[in-house]
């Protein structure tokens, strides 16, 4: 499904090389719900960016559905990001000028889904995340929890095989965190999609089926739950 083989990433900051990830090996199966837990600066976001084709590794490979995406052209990577991967960012990254509905439609626009089906699907997804009454609201008119729900609906728009979530509750209060995590659990159960989330919070990580810890750019052995 998704595999990282000897994945390393080093950032060049002027004359200094900063290793962010070192020899990461990770295998994720279809329908898995994995949490990558680690403190700030441990390399969680870098790993997610590499797995999600947002960045290229210094060495190593990433395979998605038996395709090595490491040496793909930017055009093909766009396709992977569009159709195979859904992203949820810590700060939601919604387009401010667009309504919730339009934000959810965006990935489908790039996937060239016809307008009617696109709108219907976006409405359905927003209904799934409990925002049927907020379709035309812009991000600035939504609460933090609601914005993150829109981001989740958007991540699911093109029925991606893998949903990557970078600290999805990092910016939410306790109540919203609980609600969002329940929603993720439910989506994973219903849609059978693969979910990988990063978090610094062990309590959040416990919602996942498996937890891998990341320390100083190295992945520690995986813990399985349930």
């Amino acid at each position: 499904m998704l595999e990282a083989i000897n994945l390393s990433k080093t950032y060049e900051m002027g004359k200094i090389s900063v290793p962010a990830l070192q020899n990461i090996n990770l295998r994720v199966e279809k329908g898995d719900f994995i949490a990558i837990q680690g403190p700030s600066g441990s390399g969680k976001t870098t790993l997610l960016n590499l797995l999600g084709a947002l960045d290229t590794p210094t060495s190593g490979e990433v395979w998605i559905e038996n395709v090595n995406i490491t040496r793909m052209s930017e055009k093909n990577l766009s396709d992977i990001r569009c159709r195979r991967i859904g992203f949820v960012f810590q700060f939601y990254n919604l387009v401010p000028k667009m309504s919730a509905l339009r934000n959810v439609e965006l990935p489908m626009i790039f996937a060239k889904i016809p307008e009617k089906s696109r709108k219907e699907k976006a409405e359905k997804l927003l209904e799934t995340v409990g925002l049927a009454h907020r379709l035309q609201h812009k991000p600035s008119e939504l609460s933090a929890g609601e914005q993150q729900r829109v981001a989740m609906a958007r991540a699911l728009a093109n029925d991606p095989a893998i949903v990557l979530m970078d600290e999805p509750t990092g910016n939410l209060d306790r109540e919203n965190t609980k609600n969002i995590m329940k929603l993720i659990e439910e989506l994973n159960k219903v849609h059978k999609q693969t979910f990988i989330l990063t978090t610094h919070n062990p309590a959040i990580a416990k919602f996942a089926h498996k937890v891998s810890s990341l320390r100083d750019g190295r992945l520690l052995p995986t813990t399985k739950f349930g």
Partner: protein
Amino acid sequence: MFEILNMALQNITRRALRNALTATGLAIFVIIFILVSSVTLTMQKSVTKSLSDLGGEIIIWNESSLVPFLGNIPENYTNSIEQIAYVKNVSPQITGISRVDTEDLRLTLGLNPSDIPVFYTYTMIEGAMITTNESKAVIGYLFADFLKKHVGDNVTIDGQTLPVVGIYRTDTWIDNVVIVPFEVAQNIFNLAGRTSVIMVTVTDPNKIDFVIDEVREELPDVSVFKSQEATARLTPLMNSITWVSYALFTIAGVACFFGITNVVTTGIFERTREIGILKALGAKGIDVMKMIIYESALLGTLGGILGCLVSLIPLLQGLLIPITSTTAMRISVFSEVFLYGLVLSIAISVLAALYPVWKAVRARPNEVLRFG
């Protein structure tokens, strides 16, 4: 395509004030372009028409003078030209700028009375056309109206007073001048033995080039060409006008180009994060490129249309170019100039967007989401 266009449209309305100012800048460029082009074209067409109104198929003049039709060449060249095969009529004509009564810088034509019916079509409104070399004048009806002259009045040309014997109408610019006998004009303008131009007609229109070649061989020190080429020959005067126009367009265009580049680049930098989000969601470089190019093209179209509409107002109301203190030329409306103005406005906008587009397309989504 329509979705990306729709996004571009939304982006434009999002920064309404900034984009309105940019479109206004483009509109000003288009206004300058249309008005200056219209003035230049009107002058060129007017000069061409004026020279063709002088009659004749071939013009001979002294091209080395600043304004060739106000220069002079020996009058006796007419004798040599008359000997050339296929030459039908040869008419020396004096075109002189003079003070007529109280009016400065008026054109006075000196013509042999016998050449007038050959080279000009006219109707007499009052009196009769001059037929002898006596010191008499006829006035075009427009100028006569302005000067309030009638047959029997006198007109003073550079201090020389002549009786007005006729008021004529040609429906050409010649209706704004005074015609005097050729010899009288030589006297007024101190051109004894000289003429400003020599107009020639031929017996066979197919032999114009032959006659021109013969004149050139016979009289190598003059310029000889077809009347219809007159505008191009009016160097350096017409060239200067054209080059001044080009310089104006270029300065305005370059200023616009950098202004728009600045606006688009600033807009892109402000939206770096948003572009990163779009790319993270699967937008291809080409999608981002189209979106920004469409935005610029829409701005260019908006500015172009605004400029065309604003330019149309003075032109339709009859904008005039002052020629002298009392005469003016009405600027014509040339539809192709409006089209070029619109196309230029769009082209400048799109070109100005290329650099920011290049930057935006190259940016990796993780970089802009991380640092954007």
